């Protein structure tokens, strides 16, 4: 779990409630700051910024410093010369999008079922979606070893049919998908709950088919929330370590994703190589942050105005 989407109020009504770093918080707070004496303000700000510097800024700067310490040329060579490293980049660029795609389809289906219908076990379903957040990635990987390993449940059958899941791309995708399963659904459920079904019902009443309702009404309304979920899901999928560590077998040049390759290089005492690759992952993280801030802005613009009287008659029902 790597996101505030994991905040456990199950169906917050406000879109993106808990949904991170909104930089627009001025009005009532501005006149409250004067309540604290100057020395308190300065001390606390300095302490907070100090913590942030030591915890976040110094590490990020040091990644690039270490990676580039021998100059740009060496950096580029370190990064591109090793075929295993090149392969790990390609592998991550394959596995992560596949996992995101699976969870995207799942997230939309789950959010549609949960926010547009009432059925028994609905709360249980919402809880179930959160389960991967509380399972250690290593345990997640282990579960798939149990299922598909040679001593496992389906392992012998798979082997008899010449199929293999562990130590292959499908295994990596499976493990990554499990770990990142909640992201899109957790982002979409509150968004769709807040928008409510009225526009879809209006479209239905105007004669639209299910497909027309989804593509023309639902999707345009949720697109920023969806994109936000995809960004978070993708960041986690690319960085996933524990689960893929267990299912991959760590065969360099075959099943090592970028984070695994970083560890591999680190264990081989190839520190420049490890930092060069780590710097690429860090850049991806920074890009993720920028995208996130941008999408948050758009999402806020799109979020529905809440009507207090909206559910007047039906609230009691």
């Amino acid at each position, binding site marked *: 779990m790597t996101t505030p989407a994991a905040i456990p109020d199950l169906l917050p009504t406000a879109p993106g409630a808990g949904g991170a*770093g909104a930089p627009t918080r001025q009005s009532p707070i501005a006149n409250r700051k004067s309540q604290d004496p100057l020395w308190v303000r300065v001390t606390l700000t300095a302490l907070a910024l100090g913590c942030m510097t030591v915890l976040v800024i110094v590490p990020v700067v040091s990644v690039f410093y270490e990676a580039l310490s021998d100059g740009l040329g060496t950096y580029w060579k370190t990064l591109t010369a090793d075929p295993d490293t090149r392969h790990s980049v390609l592998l991550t660029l394959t596995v992560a999008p596949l996992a995101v795609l699976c969870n995207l389809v799942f997230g939309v289906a789950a959010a549609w079922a949960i926010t*547009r*219908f009432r059925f028994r076990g609905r709360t249980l379903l919402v809880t179930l979606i959160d389960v991967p957040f509380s399972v250690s990635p290593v345990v997640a990987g282990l579960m798939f070893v149990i299922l598909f390993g040679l001593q496992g449940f389906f392992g012998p059958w798979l082997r008899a049919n010449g199929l293999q899941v562990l130590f292959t791309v499908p295994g990596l995708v499976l493990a990554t998908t499990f770990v990142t399963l909640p992201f899109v659904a957790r982002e979409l459920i509150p968004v769709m709950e807040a928008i409510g079904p009225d526009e879809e019902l209006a479209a239905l009443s105007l004669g639209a088919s299910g497909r027309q309702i989804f593509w023309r009404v639902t999707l345009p309304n949720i697109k920023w929330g969806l994109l936000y979920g995809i960004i978070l899901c993708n960041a986690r999928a690319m960085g996933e370590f524990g689960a893929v560590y267990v299912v991959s077998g760590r065969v360099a040049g075959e099943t090592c994703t970028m984070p695994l390759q970083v560890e591999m290089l680190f264990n081989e005492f190839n520190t420049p190589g490890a930092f060069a690759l780590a710097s690429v992952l860090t850049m991806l993280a920074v890009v993720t942050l920028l995208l996130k801030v941008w999408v948050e802005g758009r999402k806020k613009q799109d979020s529905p105005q809440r009507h207090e009287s909206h559910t007047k008659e039906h609230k009691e029902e």
Partner: protein
Amino acid sequence: MAQANTRVLPGYRLSISFTLVYLSVLVIIPLGACVITAAQLSWDQFRAAVWTERARAAYALTFGAALLAAAISAVVGLLVAWVLVRYEFPGKRVFDALVDLPFALPTAVAGLVFSNLYVANGWLGQFLVPLGIEGSYSRLAIVLVLVFIGFPFVVRTLQPVLEALDAEAEEAAALLGASRWQTFRRVILPALMPGLLTGFALAFARGLGEYGSVVFVSGNMPLKTEIAAFLIVSRLEEGRPNSYREATAIATVLLVASFLMLIVINRLEARSRRG
């Protein structure tokens, strides 16, 4: 009306069956397989697997480090959230965005960097190691990296609560003669408690299962700096006939423990919300 009470809109069957099949394949069946495999061990075998000296040391370290890191995260997170919401300073928006970096940064990178920063000739280690503070390949290293991963949870749960805080309650307290510190302790902190506990719980849960960053920084010495997740992996890699069942047994303990802790903390949180 905000809720569809009936299945008027299309796609119920399609979406619900897809959701259920997907969850079964990815969550229910694998979890069930894990439990069944652990259950295949006899009680004595199970006990022998999960209650070795090495395993006990690993549990103690995992829980202790996660707990300590979550507590530190709560303090750091409160401080950062407070400053970000209440005060103005240059670069505030950048700092606000940077809080999310630990969410976005792969844990392996975090581990790599932290292990490098705190060694004797590292950027921070050069000052700390002479003072006897070993921030790498030690238990402290594990706590440090878990704080890095955990504090954003606290910041992000507290920010909306702090923003929504009733200014009038604080003003009333001040008018009634409370000092700023008394106001904070008696008025503000109780209001923040549910959010703080939630953030703490999230950081703790994350810390319990964390693997990627810890393997880099801890040194993974059995009995000293080996966490439970690492023990599972090394059991798995031993390749003895029963070793993966033993790994599963330890995993089950970890699973049950983290579910239990979450329930306990949810209760605590519910109580503080009522109070």
